[in-house]
């Protein structure tokens, strides 16, 4: 069991976490957050292994990881 918590309002939609996720279960959402960024979302949370690659890559400390 593993999961990530995305703090949507801090996300700048840069897409770097999407790029490094080995399971390819992240994507940018179609709706923007209050800052106007297309924040990231996880679409297959059950496949998350908690490897924390996304969190290590994120320049804005948006993602928390539990494992």
């Amino acid at each position, binding site marked *: 069991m593993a999961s990530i918590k995305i703090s949507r309002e801090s996300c700048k939609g*840069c*897409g*770097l976490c999407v*790029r*490094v996720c080995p399971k390819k279960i992240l994507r940018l959402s179609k709706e923007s957050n209050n800052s106007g960024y297309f924040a990231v979302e996880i679409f297959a949370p059950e496949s998350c292994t908690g490897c924390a690659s996304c969190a290590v*890559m994120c320049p804005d*400390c948006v993602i*928390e*990881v539990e494992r």
Partner: protein
Amino acid sequence: MATVFKKTDMLTEVPFHYCPGCTHGIAHRLVAEVLDEMGCQNNVVGVAPVGCAVFAYNYFNCDMQQASHGRAPAVASAIKRVAPQNIVFAYQGDGDLASIGMAEIVHSASRGDNITVVFINNAIYGMTGGQMAPTTLIGQTSTTCPGGRCAAQNGNPIRVCEMLATLDGPAYIERVSLADVPSIRKAKKALQKAFNCQKEGKGFTLIEMLSSCPTNWKMTPEQALDYTKNEMQQIFPLGVFKEVK
């Protein structure tokens, strides 16, 4: 389940003002995590540069001082001398460190000041709108070399680590990259080494981090990291350039 990753308390709640995908945020987080894990939250002083990281004092949860352009190592050296019980670091861009601040960094390294310098090399002046830096690659475009940097006219990129490693003062000098996850994990180890050297009083330490500036490079964040990895790492090889045992 246990939390395996969350924003460190060594960073404040203030959101970074950096552009989307800018690696300054990664560098800040690594420095903060290392200081936090060393347990020195209450005895750290950082020195912020002039450049995009000028507001670093709002982000690090420790005492901070902002220095004039390029003078961060001189200020850090002074702080370390009057309050040596502190871990002292300077955080500088490549315009700040290798252009206007070249004299300060060379003499700080040469004196073996017991400070740690975090050197963010993004091959450009970010804050002022993307002018050529001493580290700009041959052929790389900027607002002041729109046709690409040309060696005959603009000289060649300066390799700061290699140059400083020729001096007797430095205790540890390493160049790392922030272009992918394994590199970022390595970069953190390099910072740990540097700060530990300082704790042991070994002298001047510098970690150069090959970074990206998607905005002024006019690339997406992803393209920018590819450029860091495929182009910058060719000219600025990664590795340890000085290590005093």
